[in-house]
C-alpha cells in the first residue's frame, strides 16, 4: 500500500493546482472584504462603547457579548440555513463575508473601545475647548492616538479572521479549505492536500502574525 505522502499523489495535486488556486483566491477575497466589514463594525460599535449615553453602551454590550459568546459555525449556519426560511437567500460569498465580518467585528469593537479608553480624557476636553466638533475630535485627535494601541491586536485579529474563513468549507463555500477537502476526499490523497493547504494559510498568516509581534514590541519600547 502506498504511503499517505506517496510521490504520485503530489503529482496529482500538481496537475490540479488550479483547484487550489481558485480556493485560495476565494479565501483571500472573503478575508479582505470580511476584514473591512469587521473594521467598520468595530469602529462604529467600539465608539458606541465609550459613549456617555447608556443606550449606546447597551447596544455595544449586546453586540459584543451575543456575538463573542456564540460559535461562528452557528452564526454561519443561521445565515445559510435559517435566513432562507424568511425568504432571504444570500449567495454563498455573502454568507461568508457577512458572517465572518460580523463575528470578528465584535472582537474589533472591544479592541477599538480599549484603544479609545486608553487616550487620556484631557485630549478630548482640549479638542472640545479648541472648538472641534465631536466628529472632528474623534477623527483627528482620539482615533489616531487609539490606533497606535489598537494596531497590534487588530493585526492578530486579521490572522484569526483569515483562519476562520475555513468555516465556509462547512457550507460548501468554495474557499481554500473546501476545495482542499473535496479534492482530497474525491481521490483520498489527504496527505499532500492538507500539507499544501496548511502551507498556503501559513504563507498569509505567518507574515501578518510576525508583523503584529513587531508592532507589539515597538509599543512596549515606546510605553
Amino acid at each position, binding site marked *: 500500500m502506498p504511503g499517505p505522502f506517496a510521490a504520485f499523489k503530489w503529482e496529482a495535486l500538481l496537475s490540479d493546482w488550479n483547484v487550489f488556486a481558485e480556493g485560495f483566491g476565494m479565501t483571500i477575497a472573503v478575508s479582505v472584504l470580511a476584514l473591512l466589514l469587521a473594521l467598520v463594525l468595530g469602529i462604529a460599535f467600539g465608539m458606541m462603547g465609550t459613549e456617555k449615553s447608556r443606550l449606546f453602551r447597551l447596544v455595544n454590550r449586546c453586540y459584543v457579548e451575543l456575538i463573542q459568546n456564540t460559535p461562528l*459555525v*452557528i452564526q454561519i449556519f443561521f445565515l445559510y440555513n435559517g435566513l432562507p426560511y424568511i425568504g432571504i437567500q444570500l449567495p454563498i460569498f455573502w454568507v461568508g463575508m457577512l458572517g465572518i465580518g460580523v463575528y470578528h467585528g465584535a472582537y474589533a469593537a472591544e479592541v477599538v473601545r480599549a484603544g479609545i479608553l486608553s487616550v487620556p480624557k484631557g485630549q478630548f476636553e482640549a479638542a472640545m475647548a479648541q472648538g472641534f466638533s465631536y466628529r472632528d475630535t474623534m477623527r483627528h485627535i482620539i482615533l489616531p492616538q487609539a490606533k497606535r494601541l489598537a494596531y497590534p491586536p487588530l493585526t492578530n485579529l486579521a490572522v484569526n479572521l483569515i*483562519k476562520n474563513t475555513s468555516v465556509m468549507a462547512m457550507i460548501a463555500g468554495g474557499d481554500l479549505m473546501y476545495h482542499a477537502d473535496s479534492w482530497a476526499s474525491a481521490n483520498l490523497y489527504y496527505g499532500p492536500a492538507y500539507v499544501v493547504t496548511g502551507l498556503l494559510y501559513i504563507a498569509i*498568516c505567518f507574515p501578518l502574525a510576525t508583523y503584529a509581534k513587531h508592532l507589539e514590541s515597538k509599543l512596549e519600547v515606546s510605553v
Partner: protein
Amino acid sequence: MSDIFQVPIFLFLLQGLRVTLTIAGAAILMSLVFGTILAVLRNHGGFWGHLAAVYIEAVRNAPLLLFILAFRFMTPLPPVYAGIVAMTVFETAALAEIVRGGLKSIHKGQWEAGATQGFNKIQVLRYIVLPQAIHNVIPPLVSQFTTIIKDTSYVWAVGIEDLTGKGMIIMGRYTTAAQVFTLFGLIAAIYFVINYSISCYARRRHQRMAKAIY
C-alpha cells in the same frame, strides 16, 4: 414553539452538549499543560526553544479545521478522540503564546531572588515564576477557553455530533421559520450561557484576587 420545548429534544441536545464539553474540557486541560511546557521552552531559548517556536508558529497560523480534518481522515483514531487530539494540537500553540506573554511579564529579579534562596531553576519556575505568570494572563487565558468551547463546533465538519451537530440534525425535522429560528436561538443560548458565565466568573475572581494582592 411547543414542538421544540420538549423533553426528548432537550435530552438529545444535552447529549451533544456532553460531547462538546468533553472535547473542549479535554483539549483545554491537555493544551494548558503542553502549552505551558512549550512556553517555558521557547522562553528559555536554545535548540528546544527554537523547536518550540517552529511548532507554535506553524500551528497557530493554520486553521483549526485543517487539523480536525487531518486527524479524522489520516489517523485511525475514533472520531471523538481525533477531535480531542486535533484541538489539543492546535490550542497548545495558542495557549503557549498566552503563557509566554505571562512569563515575559515576570521581572528577572524574581529568578535571581529565587536562586539566592537556594531554589534550583525548576523550583523557581514551579513555585515562583509560573504562578505569577499564569495569574497575570488569566483574562486572555479564560477568553481563549471560551474560544475553545465555541470552536469545538468545527468538529461537526467531520460528523462528530456535538451540540452544533445534534442541533443541525433536529433542524432537519422542522419546516417553519418560527421553529427553525427558535431552535437556532436555543442552541445559541446554550453556548451563550456557558461562555458568558465562564467569562463573568473569571472576571470577578480576577478582580477579587487583584484586590487581595495589592
